[in-house]
């Protein structure tokens, strides 16, 4: 293994090590939260709503919950890990190492991506036991989930790097991320919305994410798959480019 590969792996290892040391909080908590959603929106509410686009309500909702688990965990992990390291200045150990800006960005990003993946996979496994959840389009589902994870991992890095206090992270999470996710169609089909809300949803990146993920699981779509992929790629590319620029310039990290 080359020195460069060891460097990158060590950066990722640090991030994984952190969330695994507090796994009750970082894995257990989000899992419980997802199952509460499944219970409330799927089992309780679902008994009143019989079918959505030909699917049981719980089956219609679960793809969104799996996606939300990956997204929220990727974001929360990276934003809080970076901010905590900035506070303690332990981040100086990585910043004064020979790691390149790209390696640093990947190291800080992939920790949350992996945590999101673990929570999402555990949610998927249990969901498949609880309900009959099909995976109709795996070739759409896998890249879509990866892009969703990457997008929110990058969003977490961006907020963590810019934040100066824990309030800043909570602010973005509560007032930006959660509304985007909830209004993107995780718990309902956007096509059921009246105007102008239906059109407004089209400006929400989460709408394209949930559309792709739902199509991957159920084979149901309410927008073009290609267009959704294009939008997701553009959003993920843009946020990654912004982060890369920050790491190259050292802004917010190096004085």
């Amino acid at each position: 293994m080359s020195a460069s590969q060891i460097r990158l792996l060590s950066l990722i290892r640090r991030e994984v090590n952190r969330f695994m040391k507090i796994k009750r909080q970082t894995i257990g908590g989000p899992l419980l939260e997802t199952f509460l959603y499944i219970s409330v929106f799927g089992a309780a509410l679902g008994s009143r709503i019989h079918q959505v686009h030909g699917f049981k309500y719980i089956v219609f909702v679960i793809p969104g919950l799996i996606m939300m688990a990956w997204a929220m965990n990727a974001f929360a992990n990276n934003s809080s890990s970076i901010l905590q390291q900035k506070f303690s200045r332990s981040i100086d150990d990585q910043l004064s190492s020979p790691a390149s800006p790209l390696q640093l960005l990947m190291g800080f990003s992939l920790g949350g991506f992996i945590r999101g993946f673990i929570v999402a996979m555990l949610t998927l496994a249990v969901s498949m036991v609880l309900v009959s959840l099909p995976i109709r389009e795996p070739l759409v589902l896998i890249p879509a989930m990866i892009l969703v994870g990457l997008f929110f991992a990058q969003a977490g890095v961006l907020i963590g790097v810019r934040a100066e206090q824990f309030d800043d992270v909570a602010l973005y999470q509560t007032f930006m991320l959660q509304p985007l996710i909830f209004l993107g169609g995780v718990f309902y089909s956007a096509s059921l919305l009246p105007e102008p809300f239906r059109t407004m949803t089209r400006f929400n990146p989460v709408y394209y994410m949930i559309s792709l993920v739902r199509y991957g699981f159920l084979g149901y779509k309410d927008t073009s798959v290609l267009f959704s992929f294009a939008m997701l790629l553009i959003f993920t590319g843009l946020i990654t480019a912004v982060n890369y620029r920050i790491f190259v310039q050292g802004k917010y990290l190096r004085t």
Partner: protein
Amino acid sequence: MSAKPPALEITDLVKRYPNGMEALKSVSLEIAEGEFFGLLGPNGAGKSTMIHCTTGLARPTSGSVKIFGHDAVNHYREAREAVALAPQEINLDMFLTLEETLDLHGGYFGMSKADRKERTAELLDAFSLTSKRDERTRTLSGGMKRRLTLARALMHRPRLLILDEPTAGVDIELRLELWQYIEKINREGTTVMLTTHYLEEAERMCDRIAFINHGEIAAHGTIEELSARYGVNSLEDAYLELVGRQELSRSHVTAEPV
């Protein structure tokens, strides 16, 4: 054959913060390989900024910093491999054990697994931390944290070691232990740059000293050269001349009759 480059070569270094504050005003300094160099100055003089520009934690506004001939900005990889900082503030990662702290640091510097394992054991032993290897850093006493900070800096075998007030707040025993180890690695060839407020430490350890004040190098040389420059008899008095507090000099204090 070309001459060996200095361990640290700082040329016209300027650091201006976004608020307009100029922390370093065209600083130039050279430290030869193998030297034990002291950087002294009052709080806010620019010592930490200079150190941060050297280790990549701050971005110079202009000028250059070269470590063993490698530019700290354009060839940061080679430059950072050659330098290490044991900072004034303890900045250990509270999620890690002692062993993980050293192992990950070695990993950031591209050291192989076998090398990391061997070096970690060696440093834990050298700093009497082996029995604590599996404990998290947050459980350590202040002195142990200080030792681990130094061990971490030494993990990748730097050729230039920067010690930013390494003995601030540590007990006498640990202070002597640290100095013994640092003197040993200096004898073995590691260049050391030290900032300290304990002038007797600088007097005892350093080959040469630079005074920095208001972001400028006010004077540099051996203790004798600095004393001669300020027309005084000790490093302490030379320092007091630098900061304009001559009235504090012990040579001015006369014993009052009891």
